[in-house]
């Protein structure tokens, strides 16, 4: 499977306090790729780099097989984009904005645009500036979908929206993917939302990629273990130790959070004179939190 987006060793700096360093990202074609991270982690900056709105200091970005930003006009003809904040002209009506957008995309799907106007219950004569937050989000999704692009890049598209609007938007996206086989790159900090729709997920914090994996692997591979009698030094474990701390109440028990876990790995502990009393499933949100905590502890340790 080829990659819709391929980023290699990307380096970008914004001022003195923020940089994206050594970023490698591979978004498989046809996937719904969730891009998770807390606010300020660099998600929007990464998206702007992908779209050619910012220029990297070094590294390589390939989007739909073409280099960005060198081929930005060609690439953007195949990419639908929904930014975090409404970016459209507030003085144009819904209908005027649709017509404006249609003029720039030769493959514009008028029938789909009309169908989505009806489905999203948008008033064609209403000014964009007079639309509610949910209606603005719906219109931006409509414009991105009717372009019939091969890649949709969505930056927190449902942030701050009510559940009904969120469901409408996600449903439209899923329909589009199933009909077109397009790739969706969706950034969010709403973990549960991505958990429902994505088949790949990446986690970013402080301008660094913490992990990138298929959703199933991340969900089922992140576990909390209650370990008894573990030695202080653990050598070459077959899983990733994210956090390790004494269990409440002291004693010899410890709570571990591990990644890349697979059934049968408990035997590793027997080999080092320890035992696993319990293996607890974590949902994506817990796994996300533990990944962040582990990453920040390691970064903090490295800085000290």
């Amino acid at each position: 499977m080829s990659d819709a987006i391929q980023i290699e060793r990307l380096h970008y700096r914004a001022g003195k306090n923020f940089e994206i360093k050594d970023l490698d990202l591979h978004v498989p074609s046809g996937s719904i790729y969730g891009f998770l991270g807390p606010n300020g982690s660099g998600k929007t900056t990464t998206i702007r780099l992908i779209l050619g709105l910012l220029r990297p200091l070094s590294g390589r970005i390939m989007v739909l097989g073409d280099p960005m930003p060198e081929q930005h006009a060609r690439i953007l003809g195949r990419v639908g984009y929904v930014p975090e904040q409404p970016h459209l002209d507030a003085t144009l009506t819904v209908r005027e904005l649709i017509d404006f957008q249609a003029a720039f995309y030769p493959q514009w799907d008028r029938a789909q645009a009309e169908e989505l106007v009806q489905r999203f219950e948008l008033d064609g004569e209403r000014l964009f500036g007079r639309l509610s937050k949910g209606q603005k989000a719906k219109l931006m999704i409509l414009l991105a979908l009717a372009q019939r692009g091969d890649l949709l890049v969505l930056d927190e598209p449902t942030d701050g929206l009510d559940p009904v609007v969120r469901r409408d938007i996600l449903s439209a996206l899923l329909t589009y993917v199933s009909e077109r086989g397009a790739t969706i790159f969706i950034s969010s900090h709403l973990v549960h939302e991505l958990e429902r729709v994505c088949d790949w997920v990446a986690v970013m914090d402080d301008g660094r990629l913490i992990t990138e994996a298929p959703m199933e692997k991340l969900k089922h591979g992140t576990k909390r273990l209650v370990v008894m009698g573990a030695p202080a030094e653990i050598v070459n474990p077959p899983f990733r130790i994210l956090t390790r701390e004494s269990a409440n109440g002291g004693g010899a028990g410890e709570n571990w959070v591990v990644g890349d876990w697979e059934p049968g790995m408990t035997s590793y502990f027997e080999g080092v004179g320890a035992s696993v009393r319990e293996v607890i499933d974590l949902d994506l949100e817990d796994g996300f939190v533990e990944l962040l905590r582990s990453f920040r502890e390691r970064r903090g340790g490295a800085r000290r």
Partner: protein
Amino acid sequence: MTAMFRAVLFSQWKWSRLVVVLGTVAAFAIPLLSLQGAARVDRGALQAQELLRAVQSWGTLYPLLATALGLLMAIAAWAADHRGRHIHALTLPLERWRYVLLRFGAGFVLLAAPIAAVLIGSSLAVLTATLPTGLQAYPIALAARFAFAAFVAYALFFAVSAGTARTAGIILATIAALVLVQVVASIANIDLDLLSAAQTVLLLGPGPLAIFTGRWMLVDV
């Protein structure tokens, strides 16, 4: 490209239609008003001088109108993109220079209305007036000069308006520094007239800005 231009032209018309309509009305009215006293048949040499004075004083309004139209149309051309932090424009599938050209072209097309109004208003004013012997009417030359002035003003302000707040800041800071140096020189009794020198260089010397100076005469000898 035609569809893109139509879309950009429509959006720009929507943002600047009040400016265009008011500018067109003013451009039509100024030549008519400048010749309002010339409709009488009993004019002699003295009346001709009076008429020339009236035409000359009304003529100062043409460069002012051209500058105002250029400024307002240039601001309107970029206002919505500035508000949206240029995200929409920069994610459209075309080279950026093409987008700038579309915006520039659309603004200039809209300026055609007040330019045409000057031509029609001037021609109408000349047709309905009886000019004293020895005076000639120049409606086409006046309209062409107005068109060039509007184009220069629009191009200049379009370039400034297209820039960032930093660009505007640099331009304002340069002007402020010029004024400050002039004030300090005046206080220190130094014989330095920077503002006049700047005016001479920018407006009176050969160059596109010289179009704004001189006599804007619909009727002349």
